[in-house]
C-alpha cells in the first residue's frame, strides 16, 4: 500500500478483501497529523444548534462563537434565535479571576432580551481549565428565570467530535421528561432523532410520515423546539439517523422511559424505503404498512426513470467518500451504486468497528477504507484509484477540485436537500453536474482518468 500513510495510522487504513476489512478506529488522532476531525465543542454545537427557540451561549473566548455562527444550513419553520451568535467573550482578566460571574450576567441579559424557551451554555476548553462552576450558575439562573438553563460539557480537549455528540445528548437528556403533554398523544407517535433539517430535509421526511399516518412528537434536533423535546418521552418510538450522534440519547431514553429505537438512514432509495417500512413494522398496523408501500411505489416509480438518465451517463465513474459520520458513508455507497458509480475509497471521521464492517460488506474488493484520515492520504488514494468524484465537507472540497475531481458537499454546506426520494434526485443532479462540468476539459487531471477531450473554441477545432 501507499507510502502516504503515517506509520502509526497503518491499522486505521484497510483494503477490502472478501467483503471484509480489518480496521482500527475510535482512536484519538495522532498528534501532528493534519486530521480532518474537530473537537468536543464542535460536536455538541452542531447537534444542539438546530434547536431554534433556545439561546446558545458560548462561554469562552469569541473565537469558538465566531466559527460556529450560522455555519450550518439548518432551517427553521419559526423562530431563528439559533442563528445569532452569543458569547461571554472571555478576556485575560476573566481567565485569571474566573468567568462564572460574567456568565451569570450574560445569561441574565440574554434571557431578559430574547425570552427564549431554554438556554444552552457551552463550556469551552478554557472554562474546563480555569474551573468555572458552570453547573451551579445554570441552576441558579434557571431558578431565577424559570426556564431550563442547560450546561453542555463541551470542553474541546475532552475528546473528539463524537464525545461532543455525547455531551449534547447529556444536555438533551436533562430536558427530556420535564414537561407533560396537554392532552393524549396520538397512537403512532415518533421522535425523529439525528436529522438536522439541512436545506429543509426534515420537512420532506415529515411529509412522508404524515402521508403514512405517523405523528411526529419531537424533532431532535432539526427545526427543534424546546417544549417538544421536553415532552419527547411520550413517543412510542425513536427513529434515529446519524448513528454516531444520537444513538446515545436513544439508549438513554430506552433505559429511562422505555422508548425503543430504530436506526435508519434517509439517503438513497433503499435506505429511505427501509426507514418507512421499519416504522410501519414497529407499530404492527397493516394500514401503516399499506400506506408506506403505496408511498414507496409512487415515489420510486417517479424517481427511477429520472435516475436512469444519470445512470447511463455516470456509469463506470469512481468515487471517494469521506464524511463525518459512518452511517452516511454507508448510505452513500448504495446511493452512488444506483447511479452507476463505484466507491473506491471510503471512510469517516468517527466510525465504529461495526460501521466499517458494513462498509466492507458493501464495497468491491480492493476498495480502501479509512478512519480519521487526512488530506495527504485521501488525495493519494484518490489518485491511485483514479477517482472522478469526491463526496465530503468544507475542508475536502478545494483538495478535490485542485486534483480535478468533481465534488458534492454532503455536509453542512449542502444547498439542496439530499434526503428522501427528492433528495436522491437532487444528489444525482449535483453529482452529474460536477462530474460533467466542462471545466475539466481545461485541466489535466491528477487522478489518471482520461478526460473526454473537448476541442478548443467551443467545438471549432
Amino acid at each position, binding site marked *: 500500500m501507499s507510502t502516504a500513510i*503515517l506509520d502509526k495510522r497503518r491499522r486505521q487504513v484497510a483494503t477490502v478483501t472478501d467483503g471484509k476489512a480489518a480496521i482500527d478506529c475510535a482512536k*484519538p488522532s*495522532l*498528534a*501532528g*497529523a*493534519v*486530521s480532518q476531525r*474537530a*473537537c*468536543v*465543542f*464542535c460536536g455538541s454545537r452542531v447537534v444542539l444548534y438546530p434547536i431554534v427557540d433556545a439561546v446558545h451561549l458560548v462561554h*469562552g*473566548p*469569541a*473565537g*469558538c462563537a465566531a*466559527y460556529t*455562527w450560522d455555519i450550518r444550513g439548518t432551517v427553521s419553520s419559526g*423562530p431563528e434565535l439559533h*442563528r*445569532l451568535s*452569543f*458569547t461571554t*467573550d*472571555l*478576556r*485575560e482578566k476573566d*481567565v485569571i479571576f474566573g468567568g462564572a460571574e460574567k*456568565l451569570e*450576567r450574560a445569561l441574565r*441579559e*440574554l434571557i431578559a*432580551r*430574547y425570552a427564549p424557551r431554554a438556554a444552552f451554555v457551552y463550556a*469551552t*476548553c*478554557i472554562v*474546563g*481549565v*480555569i474551573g468555572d462552576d458552570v453547573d451551579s450558575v445554570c441552576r441558579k439562573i434557571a431558578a431565577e428565570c424559570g426556564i431550563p438553563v442547560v450546561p453542555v460539557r463541551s*470542553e*474541546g480537549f475532552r*475528546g*473528539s*467530535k463524537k464525545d461532543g455528540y455525547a455531551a449534547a445528548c447529556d444536555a438533551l437528556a436533562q430536558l427530556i421528561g420535564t414537561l407533560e403533554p396537554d392532552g393524549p398523544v396520538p397512537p403512532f407517535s415518533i421522535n425523529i432523532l439525528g436529522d438536522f433539517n439541512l436545506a429543509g430535509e426534515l420537512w420532506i421526511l415529515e411529509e412522508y410520515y404524515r402521508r403514512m399516518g405517523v405523528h411526529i412528537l419531537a424533532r431532535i434536533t432539526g427545526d427543534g423546539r424546546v417544549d417538544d423535546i421536553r415532552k419527547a418521552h411520550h413517543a412510542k418510538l425513536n427513529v434515529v439517523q446519524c448513528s454516531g450522534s444520537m444513538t446515545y440519547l436513544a439508549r438513554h431514553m430506552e433505559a429511562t422511559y422505555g422508548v425503543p429505537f430504530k436506526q435508519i438512514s434517509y439517503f438513497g432509495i433503499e435506505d429511505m424505503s427501509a426507514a418507512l417500512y421499519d416504522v410501519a413494522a414497529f407499530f404492527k398496523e397493516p394500514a401503516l404498512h399499506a400506506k408506506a408501500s403505496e408511498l414507496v411505489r409512487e415515489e420510486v416509480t417517479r424517481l427511477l426513470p429520472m435516475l436512469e438518465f444519470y445512470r447511463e451517463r455516470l456509469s463506470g465513474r469512481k468515487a471517494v467518500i469521506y464524511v463525518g459520520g459512518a452511517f452516511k458513508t454507508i448510505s452513500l455507497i448504495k446511493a452512488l451504486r444506483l447511479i452507476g458509480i463505484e466507491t473506491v475509497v471510503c471512510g469517516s471521521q468517527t466510525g465504529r468497528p461495526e460501521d466499517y464492517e458494513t462498509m466492507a460488506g458493501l464495497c468491491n474488493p480492493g476498495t480502501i477504507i479509512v478512519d480519521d484520515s487526512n*488530506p*495527504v492520504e485521501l*488525495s493519494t488514494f484518490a489518485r491511485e484509484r483514479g477517482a472522478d468524484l469526491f463526496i465530503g465537507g*468544507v*475542508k475536502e*472540497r*478545494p*483538495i478535490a477540485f*485542485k486534483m*480535478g475531481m468533481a465534488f458534492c458537499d454532503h455536509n453542512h454546506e449542502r444547498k439542496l436537500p439530499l434526503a428522501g426520494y427528492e433528495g436522491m434526485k437532487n444528489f444525482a443532479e449535483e453529482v452529474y453536474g460536477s462530474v460533467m462540468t466542462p471545466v475539466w476539459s481545461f*485541466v489535466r*487531471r*491528477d487522478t489518471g482518468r482520461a478526460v473526454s477531450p473537448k476541442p478548443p473554441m467551443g467545438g471549432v477545432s
Partner: protein
Amino acid sequence: MLLRHTTKEIKEREALTVNPAKTCQPIGAMYAALGIHGCLPHSHGSQGCCSYHRSTLTRHYKEPVMAGTSSFTEGASVFGGQANLLAAIDTLFTVYNPDLIAVHTTCLSETIGDDLNQIIGKAKEEGKIPEGRRVIYANTPSYVGSHVTGFSNMVEGIVRGLPEKSAAKNDTLNIIPGWVEPSDMREIKRMAKEMGVPVTVFPDTSGVLDSTMTGHAEMYPKGGTPVADVVASGASKHTLALGHFASEAGAKALEVKCGVPYTALSLPIGISATDRFVQALSDLSGKPVPESLADERGRLVDFITDMQQYFWGKRVALWGDPDQLVSLAEFLTDIDMRPVYVVSGTPGKAFDERISKVLKGVPEAKVKNGASADMFLMHQWIKNEKVDLLMGNTYGKYIARDEATPFVRVGFPILDRVGHSYMPTVGYAGAIRLLEKILNALLDHKDATCPETQLELVE
C-alpha cells in the same frame, strides 16, 4: 425573521457579546504562517481549533489549507502539552516534510502554561528537527486581542525565528504587507517592481491561497516568501510596515534584532494612503515615481471626478479590522462620503486615536471597538439612523437584507462572494476596484428600488 431580534433601544452591555465583529488570535497566526513558502502551520491545542481555522480560511479563500494540530486530550490539559508537541514535530517533519513549522498556541495551551521556547529547544536536543529545517513559534492566547493580534504575533514570531543580522546592508526594502489578501500582496510586489525597487514581502500568501488549478493537490503551493529571503531580510536597508496593528510589531522586532530601521504606514487602501506608500518607496529607494504609476493614479482621480455626484454626502457603516477601517475611512472621506459608524471587535485605545484623526471632518461619526463592539450594536445604530451603504465582511449580510441597504464586501472573512483572491483593493488599481464596487452597489440599489419615473438609462 432573523433580525427582528434586534431592538432599537441601546443598553450598555458588559458581559454579553452578540454577533462578534472579531475572532480569535490563532487563525491570524495560521494565515501569517501560510505566507512563508514550505511552511506548515501548527496549532498547539485541541483538534477543533485547527479544524475551525482551516475551515474558515477555506471558506474565505476557496483553497485547501494545511495545518497540523497537537490534538490535546484530557491528559494533556492536566499534565501539559509537551509530549503532544514533541510527537507532533516528529510526525510533521517525517510525513509532511515542511521547510519550516510555525507553531502557535491556543487559549488552552496558554492557560496550562506550556513554554513553547523550551519545548522546541527540547525537540532540537532530541534530534526531532532535521538539519536545515526550522521551528518557529508565536504565543497567541485567544482571550487577548483578536485575530489581528494573532497575525501580528506570528509576524513577530517569524522575525524572532528567521532573519539574521548583517552589518552590511543592501538596497532591498522589506515590506510587511499586513493582513491583506493574496491579490493585495501580489499588487504590492507589482507596484514595487514598477518602481524598480527590490523588495522582500513577508508574509506573502500570493501563490499559496490563490493558487492555480493544476490538476494536482500540492501540500506546499509554489507561492509564499522563501525562507532564505526572510533570513536575508536582516540585511535590508529599511522595512515598511503596512498597517500599524498587523505589521508594526514585526517591523519593530526586526529593527531591534537586526538593526533594520522601519517606517509604519497605513494600509495602502485608497488614494491618500497609497500616495504615502508610493512616496515612501520613492524616498527610501531614491527612485522617482514612474510614469506608469502616475498614470494609474491619474485614472483613479479621473474616476472620482467623473462620479463625484454619486459619492457626496453618502452615509456609510464600516466594520472589520483596525488597519482596513482606518484606511477605508480615510478613503471615504477623500471621496466626500461620510463614514458615520465604525465598529471593530479588536480592542485597544490606539485604534480610537487613529480613527478619530481620520474622522475629524465627520463629527457625527460613532466609533466603538473592543468589548461589546459587535454586529448587534452596529445594527442598533443603523436602526436608529439609517445609512446609505454598508462596507465590511460577510457578517453584514443580515443587516443588509433587514435594512434593504446596499452592501460592499471588504475585509475578512468573505464567505459568500469571490473576487477578493483575484483582484486587489490596495494601490491605485485597488482603489478603482473599490470605487466600482461602491458605485455599482449604490446604483443597483437605486435601479431596483426607485419609482419607475426615476429609473434613468444614463447615470
